[in-house]
């Protein structure tokens, strides 16, 4: 599996690079890097849905926003510790995906896209409306509880701690997902992507496996949302907006869908683009739209997919 090796080396190299950069980068760049890592987690989860089982969901902002809110609300109201709050985030992703998934995954492609978009939009409306709970689009601020490691308490208000905390989760998520995708489940996912009817006739309950993929990507997306809220000490109804559903698709398309880690390239490019362009151009989203069109016309395999196909 030459291609798999390319992806693996890329991922390990990237993680090592990130570990080094943490100590080297100036604080502005470091903050940007933390965001990139969080989005990298989100993107990996989304790729399981899009790249591995060909389910193009436009509703993943639901998981991202829900994970953020689960984290913030459990800190605010349940006085949860940091890790507990993040666990609740992941749990919320699981619950939402497990409840909404069965409705969505048996829909055919176009219906799936639309319905996931509708569901996310409705939850966004609810979040905007239930201001007493969510703060609407003004949002909620929290003070982040310290990371209790038994022998020592670390505060995430220390930028370095925050950085390596997020990097830890990024690495763990990568290793867990990579393992799952190398296991039989991963092969079944790819089979379903390549030819769902064939997989069905080989004895696989395709809907059930699509649901598993959906749930995995929901849980990871929620984790990303929780980490984002923790890093910014803030979350708002905006996190459930359509923009956050479109971003993962763009990340995967640019970086390479079905590669798990190709999306990191997409994240890096888009984040850098946003960071620098939105500073001087108010209508940055206009350029975003144009960029999407350009990317789509150049390559649908994405950067990493393109590189890997050259390696044989």
């Amino acid at each position: 599996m030459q291609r798999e090796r390319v992806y693996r080396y890329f991922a390990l190299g990237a993680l090592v690079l990130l570990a080094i950069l943490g100590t080297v980068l100036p604080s502005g760049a470091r903050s940007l890097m933390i965001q990139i890592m969080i989005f990298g987690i989100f993107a990996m989860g989304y790729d399981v849905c899009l790249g591995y089982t060909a389910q193009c969901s436009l509703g993943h902002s639901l998981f991202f926003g829900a994970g953020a809110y689960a984290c913030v609300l459990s800190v605010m109201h349940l006085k949860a510790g940091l890790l507990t709050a993040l666990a609740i985030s992941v749990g919320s992703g699981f619950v939402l995906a497990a409840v909404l998934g069965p409705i969505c995954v048996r829909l055919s492609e176009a219906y799936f896209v639309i319905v996931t978009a509708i569901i996310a939009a409705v939850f966004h409306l609810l979040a905007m409306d239930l201001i007493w709970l969510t703060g609407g689009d003004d949002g909620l601020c929290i003070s982040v509880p310290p990371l209790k490691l038994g022998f020592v308490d670390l505060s995430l208000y220390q930028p370095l701690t925050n950085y390596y905390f997020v990097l830890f989760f990024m690495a763990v998520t990568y290793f867990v997902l990579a393992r799952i995708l190398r296991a039989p489940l991963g092969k079944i996912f790819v089979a379903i992507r390549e030819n769902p009817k064939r997989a069905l006739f080989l004895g696989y309950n395709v809907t059930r496996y699509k649901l598993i993929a959906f749930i995995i990507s929901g849980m990871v997306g929620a984790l990303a949302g929780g980490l984002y809220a923790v890093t910014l000490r803030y979350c708002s109804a905006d996190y459930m907006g359509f923009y956050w559903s479109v971003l993962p698709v763009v990340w995967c398309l640019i970086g390479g869908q079905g590669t798990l880690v190709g999306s990191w390239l997409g994240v890096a490019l888009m984040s850098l683009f946003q960071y620098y362009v939105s500073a001087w151009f108010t209508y940055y989203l206009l350029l975003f739209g144009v960029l999407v069109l350009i990317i789509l016309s150049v390559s649908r395999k994405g950067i990493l997919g393109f590189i890997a196909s050259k390696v044989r």
Partner: protein
Amino acid sequence: MPEWAATVLFLLMNGLIWGLIIALIALGLTLIFGVMGIVNMAHGDLYMVGAVLAFFLLPVTGSFWIALAAVPIITAVIAGPVERFILRPYEGHPAVTMIATVGISFILQQIALATYGGIPKKIADPVDFSFSLLGVSYPGYRLLVAGIAILIILGIYLFLYRTNYGILIRASIQDRQMAAAMGINVSSVLVTTFIIGSVLAAVAGVLAAPISQVFYLMGNDVGLLSFIVVIVGGLGSLGGTLIAALALCSLEGVLASVLSPTQAKAAIFVVMIVVLMVRPRGLFGEREG
């Protein structure tokens, strides 16, 4: 007539008229999907474009009705090249095309933001009379909108079911490959369908402008509702879309009397979920999605 009944009737009328406007938009959406297989995420923004164009054309032309006539032409001029040169290259890749329409959606919204501004504004009612129905006074413009919408829907029906070109379009909905094999100029059908669909949305926007506020993000809400309608009615089914639009909007209108607007919307959403659980293709949907 008792107070509550008058209110309900009023809301029902509102709902039906709004349903007719949504029907125009949803028909465009389902037509585009049915013939081209494209989920057009920018469709709601075409509605917004129609409204914004009306806003800009009013002072220029001095008449709402001239603006109403001009908007379809302008929309067609924009939509044609967009389909032919931006969307056509992705033909056969529905997911990619859909993301491309997302890109277009962002572009349209930002252009509107830059030119029209971020403040919601209102257009005055072009006609100023009231109609008295069962003791309830009803704004005349809205009835006019209903009349125009009905005329347009009838026109679309006649076009699709009574003209030769309409038959070509419907054949393409049934089976595009077969249509191409029979020598139908698929390219012209694609462009025409996209233009018709876009014009329907834009005209709906013009008609709706005096009723609701013109805002660069107004396409989002309406787009969401149109998608719900299209899903419930069944993608690709014209009759289903019409019925779903009228039913859902009337329902929302009536529910808004007892529930908050958001709750009413959530109720419509629940209806959609229930329909999907029973019929994953929508009530009348047939086409392979």
